[in-house]
């Protein structure tokens, strides 16, 4: 069902955990639907210097979280904003059709954390104007 890449990230997820003094925290998903992702960002000079996640969800949710953290780590906010769900899924060598929402969730979790950072710091991040972290990815 899953690619070797997905399984590898499920077996050895990168960046699991919390950041005590995170600059931005985002949580998306719904326990009712069986998946919640929480992302912690440490941001210095517009660069994501550290990232951690916690995920309640299926194998692809965990793998997507792991992959997404890898993809944004060390990136600028602008670069991180360009990490789409498609890019996450592709980096995992694809996800089964009914699991595509997991990658959507990962993208949203990053954005939610960035939005939290923006709010806390009273800045605007391009592309987050209309972002709603409570939107249900299952409907996509």
């Amino acid at each position, binding site marked *: *069902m899953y690619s070797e890449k997905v*399984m590898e990230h*499920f*077996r050895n*997820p990168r960046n*699991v955990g*919390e950041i005590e003094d995170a600059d931005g925290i985002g*949580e998306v998903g719904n*326990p*009712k*639907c*069986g*998946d*919640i*992702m*929480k992302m912690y960002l440490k941001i210095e000079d517009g660069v994501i210097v550290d990232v951690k996640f*916690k*995920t*309640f*969800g*299926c*194998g692809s*949710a*965990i793998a997507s979280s792991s992959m997404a953290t890898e993809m944004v780590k060390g990136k600028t906010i602008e670069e991180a904003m360009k990490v789409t769900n498609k890019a996450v899924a592709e980096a995992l060598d694809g996800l089964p059709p*009914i699991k595509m*929402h997991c990658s959507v969730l990962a993208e949203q979790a990053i954005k939610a954390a960035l939005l939290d950072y923006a709010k806390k710091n009273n800045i605007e991040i391009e592309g987050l104007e209309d972002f709603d972290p409570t939107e249900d990815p*299952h409907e996509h």
Partner: protein
Amino acid sequence: MDKLIYMDNSATTPVKKEVLETMLPYFSEKFGNPSSVYSLGSQSKVAVEESREKIAKAIGAKPKEIFFTAGGSEADNWAIKGIAYANKEKGNHIITSKIEHHGILHTCEYLEKQGFKVTYLDVDEYGVVDLEQLKDSINDETILISIMYANNEIGTIQPVEEIGQIAKEKGIYFHTDAVQAVGHIKIDVNKLNIDMLSMAAHKFYGPKGIGALYIRQGVKIDPLISGGGQERNRRAGTENVPGIVGMGKAIELAYKDIEEKNQKLIYLRERLIKGILDNIDHVRLNGHPTNRLPGNVNVCFEFIEGESLLLSLDMEGIAASSGSACTSGTLDPSHVLLAIGLPHEIAHGSLRLSLGDFNTEEEVDYVVEKLVDIVARLRAMSPLYEKVKEGK
């Protein structure tokens, strides 16, 4: 352990060696069509009838009341649609339960679109159907009651005898989906007043692709598959002779020493349940505490999701399943767990370990040990568990 630990015997079972051996000659040597006049055909016919007798005997039926199907789902569809269409002049109301297998539920939903009315009975916290509600639901239009014998997810055994009694008193046909019960529990269709009963060989160490519907003599039912005169004109199609032969052998083996086997299974089951409950917190046992299938264990681990549990178990060489039908294209949690009152988020964390004839105590202990680690690891990753620890 280097060998696979298979604890998904409710999903399907391996074909037992003796069963496969009895099947083998019927593929390439004794391959005749049972409907043929010549000896090669009669040979097949005899084999089919011998198997039918074995199956009839196992459930206390007459051989001519056993009709072979391609499996449990076909038997379920046949029973429901066959009764509905054949008796629609009599009434258009069917009673079933909320915890049936999809083979029943989706068929009932299909019939609702065709104008039939269906009542889906509630169950209590253990998954037992509400007999009072059953009685209250019966009306002049009711033509069929279909309640499963034992639930495939949580293992709860239903009060089949009482249901049969109610159905008999009211003169309503009673069908039971016994796919999880046949070969595992002693059944007597007459004592239980069962009019139709579905079964599938692959649930009791027989082959996949073969099952049967018991139809009590005199029951008015339309065929689901019309055509040739096989199965006394009730189920067309060249007989799956090797499958039928295998099913006969499998049911014979299944009921041999069944008490002893079940004693062992219940011992393992209780050991597994105790091991889990004693060593892991925030966990609950689903289904009836005692009145459940001998091999069925179903638990919910809070704060984690079923599929990642299964994948983790698979990594340790343990095959199990979860109520959440992740792979079947839906992301909804099990309708059975919701029906017994679990909230969605807990229903997502369910695990079914179904024990079978090949499982050992050693395996049970190994699974408990691994589960402790896996649950801890997944919870450490879970934002829900974090909140609990923090007391939120």
